């Protein structure tokens, strides 16, 4: 592990100022000399492995603004402070009742210990766990741009079938972001160029030919809050996560589903997929396929086919297309059958 400077600012503007001083406009947040740290469950791990190499850490845990640590549920929706821990949100009674897809996605993520450390904003920004990215002796375009991708023809069972490119097929492994994207959440960010709102759907970047660019954020921008609007489909929602073991494993496939039903007829459907894509993946084609239809096994199956129409399999991950479809079908039917 390399030496680094450690700073603990107490307000957001000071944190931005430090980051601004030690980064440039072109720096990617994950590659900049100065990087923010909250729970540290991702960054500290990658620093030890030599994957992340900031020489200055700006710790956000001393920031004083109380809103950063609050969950507010109102008629308009939810506002999560960025520093709320995953475990705290997973256990929130109003979320479980009114936004089950969010509570589920948090409860099924990581382990109890990690959930108690990891912040919500940090969770959304978590980096891929691609085996070839994590270990510096492999070629990886995301870690070292232009160096090649060892996963493409390697052991790629965990890798993405949606949103990949010739440069990178690393999966986005998070769960929470799928629930957020299904509910049209936005993040609030503050940086040296001011404050702004970013739809969660626009936060993450697909790899294309620049897999080292992971998000839309500037290196000196801090996510301060995540906002979820109150929508009619929030209450009838769930997150289904399929994995190799019952707990503490990444999704092989997951589905965040939210439905507004009239009987068994779909007024509105919101669908996001995890474990199968390079970014939190909104399945708009599947949503449209269901609009106005009776939700049953055939219509769910048609929606699942639409969701994976553009999927591109590799040697070891082809099963994710079939599994992803079945996961979505099961999630849709289970959501339909929820008692709300």
């Amino acid at each position, binding site marked *: *592990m*390399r030496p680094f400077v450690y700073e603990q600012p107490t307000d957001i503007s000071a944190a931005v100022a430090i980051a601004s001083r030690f980064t440039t406009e072109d720096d990617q947040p994950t590659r900049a000399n100065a990087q923010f740290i909250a729970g540290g469950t991702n960054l500290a791990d990658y620093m030890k492995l*030599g994957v992340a190499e900031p020489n200055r850490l700006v710790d956000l845990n001393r920031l004083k603004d109380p809103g950063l640590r609050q969950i507010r549920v109102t008629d308009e929706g939810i506002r999560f402070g960025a520093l709320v821990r995953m475990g705290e949100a997973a256990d929130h009674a109003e979320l479980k009742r009114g936004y089950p897809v969010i509570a589920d996605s948090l409860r099924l993520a990581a382990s109890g210990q990690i959930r108690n450390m990891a912040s919500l904003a940090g969770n959304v920004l978590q980096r891929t*766990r691609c*085996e*070839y990215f*994590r*270990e*510096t*002796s492999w070629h990886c375009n995301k870690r070292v741009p232009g160096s090649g991708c*060892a996963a493409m*023809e*390697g*052991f790629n*069972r*965990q890798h993405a079938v949606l949103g990949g490119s010739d440069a990178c097929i690393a999966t986005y492994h998070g769960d929470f972001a799928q629930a957020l994207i299904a509910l049209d959440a936005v993040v609030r960010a503050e940086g040296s160029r001011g404050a702004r709102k970013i739809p969660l759907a626009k936060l993450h970047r697909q790899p294309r030919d620049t897999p080292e660019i992971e998000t839309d954020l500037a290196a000196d921008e801090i996510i301060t809050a995540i906002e979820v609007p109150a929508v009619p489909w929030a209450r009838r929602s769930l997150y289904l996560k*399929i*994995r*190799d*073991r*019952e*707990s*503490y*494993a990444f999704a*092989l*496939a997951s589905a965040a589903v939210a439905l507004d039903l009239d009987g068994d007829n779909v007024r509105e459907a919101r669908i996001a997929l995890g474990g199968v894509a390079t970014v939190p993946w909104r399945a708009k084609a599947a949503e449209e396929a269901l609009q106005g239809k009776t939700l049953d096994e055939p219509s769910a199956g048609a929606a699942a086919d639409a969701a994976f129409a553009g999927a591109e399999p590799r040697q070891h991950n082809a*099963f994710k297309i*079939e*599994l992803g479809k*079945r*996961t979505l*079908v*099961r999630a849709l039917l289970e959501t339909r059958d929820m008692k709300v």
Partner: protein
Amino acid sequence: MDTAAPRPKENQGQPLPRVDARLKVTGQAHYPADLPTANIAYGALATSSIAKGKVAKLHLDDARAVPGLLDIVTYGDMDTVEKPKFANSGSTSIGPLHDRTIFHDGQIIALAVAETFEAAEEAAQLIRAEYDAETPTASFDSPGTATIPAAGKSPLFKEDVKAGDFDAAYKEAAVKIDARYSTPTQHHNPIELFSTTAFWEGDQLIVHEPSQNVTGWKVELARQLKIDPAKVRIVSPFIGGAFGSKGPMTPRTAIVAVAARRLGRPVRCVTSRMQAFGTQTYRAETRHRIRIGAGKDGRITAFAHEGWEVTSRPDSYVVGGTSATGRMYGYGSVLTHVSLVQADRNTPGYMRSPPETPYVYALENAMDEMAVALGMDPVEFRRINEPKTEPIGKKPFSSRSLIQCYDQAAEAFGWAKRDPKVGAMRDGDWLVGMGCATAIYPTAVAPCAARVRLTVDGDVRLQCGSHEIGTGVRTVAGQMASERLGVSIDRISVEMGDSSLPPAPVSGGSISTASVCSAVLKACDAIRAKLYAGATAEGGPLAGSHNEELDLADGKIVAKGGASAKVEDVLKTMQVGAIEEYAEFAPKGATPEALKKLYAGMPEFHGGEQDEDSVKYAFGAEFVEVRINRYTREIRVPRIVGAFAAGRIMNTRTARSQLMGGMIWGIGQALHEATEVDSRYARYVNRDLQDYLVPVNADINDLQVILVPEVDHAVNPAGVKGLGELGNVGTAAAVASAVYHATGKRIRDLPIRIEQLLV
């Protein structure tokens, strides 16, 4: 008494809590890397990123520039010491710093030593190698493998067993199967990381390292360093999981010892989780072809088991599980053959039930297929083929309670409620399947020494150079002394894990309880004899009594008639403050060299298939229920029941715990565990616990262990059959059978994963 502490049945000892339980749960148990050492320097390994070729050049300047760097041990620095040997005490013959040749991924290329752990790690990461790389051979299907017969390549695997005329019998069989199975690469991944701490006191070398074989390591390390074994001490008081991985010493130990000698101060090197995949041993992948032929009545007339095992280029590591599978049932004829397949990989090594885990998995999955082919209940099929003698040498079993195990486990499991039709059992969206399999493990025993001292204050000190790898051997050894000397367990201190203690064999092959307890029994009986002599001597408190009328209980010698004398008083009459006995136990059939070899770290194993009079095995039967979602096909295991018979059970608590741990591991082997090898580079991909999956609490639900009473005086004086490696044998086959029952899909390649059930 509760679930964790089963009420003892016939020939079963009390469920005493572990003597070191409190130390372990309060963090006071010191594992080797925890042992305090003054003025310590830290070492970190640099390892190769290719699997085959030569190190053309090492760039050390960046590493040397790291503040706090003290030394780098690399090529040339080990030239004055001997290369490692591949044997019981040595994991490989590859001397990584003796030779610039790279034999496998993750091979040690240097050790960086620094004032802090962080500086050492940083320096190790900055060591850059230039390679003359060659295309490596990864595994079975890669170009460039060499396949050789295994028989005779290892002293543990002398021959391919056979009996009768398989070809003729198989040809004539009314019902037959011919199927291929495979098991993946697996790494032990004990939670305690591998480490070496070495320091020199004058010409005396002390090594703190988790070890299952302190005596063997002492001798082997002395050989490598060209010093007198009496000058080497290996200390390993607690081991945080081993499973065979800490049995053979790896090349790292001598490298760290050399670093400590060069620096003149202690050096501690803890390898990372990732580095352990290449610098330690592992269970190599195996392949199997099994043919079974039977009459319509279900009697097996022909059995053939062919096995293929991956090993490294320089070392022929063999497991050869056909010795056990060839003797499992009353086959009419047997044909076996084991081959080694050499590839550019590190040398594999012992991993819990090394031969039985892969070979019995294949056999038992095949047995279930055969039962299906016969249209027969799988339990009934095994009952029909229960042998009177083993089919190879026609020897009797010293004891065999397999059918009792099946009966008791089947009843507890509710096997009778199973609808034999495939796919017939459902619970909502979940397909329900039930399966079973046999567990078997050879019962061996080895020479062992122990020293026991009983003092006038009623305290007992027991010393034996065995190893507490989590099995509870410290507790059961103390329990044996407690029973024989009539002293409460809390007055007994048990010292283990130090090569300066009386030597014990390697803690492998499930021999420890039998070997250690037999030595402790012998020492205690010698103490009893002296006490009796003192008590019954003329003028003694029990003068006139005969030894056979006496027993020891609650600090007293008790005569049959009711008379008794306090041990304390007897010792006073004898005018001694303590009786100390050093006992050397050698099993029946031991050679005249047996004890000498024990001190030389090369213990003879006896039992299993080798004895003249009988073959010796412990048996069990495991029943598993699986649930598989009809859409997404994930497999869950709500219930597992295992019944096991293993002779005298010293302690029902620690025995249950061992078997439970084995069954859990078996579930992991069935559904989770696999080291993935990148076939292009012969490199391990999932080198951490993020991607190397083992079961978590949520995967293990209702688990029941039944200890079936069994008496066997032939195995060893303690009457104990080892059971540490019994519980995880057969489990994966039981899971595979249950998956078949639920889905109609016969999965023959482990682990069983969602993708195999989607198609």
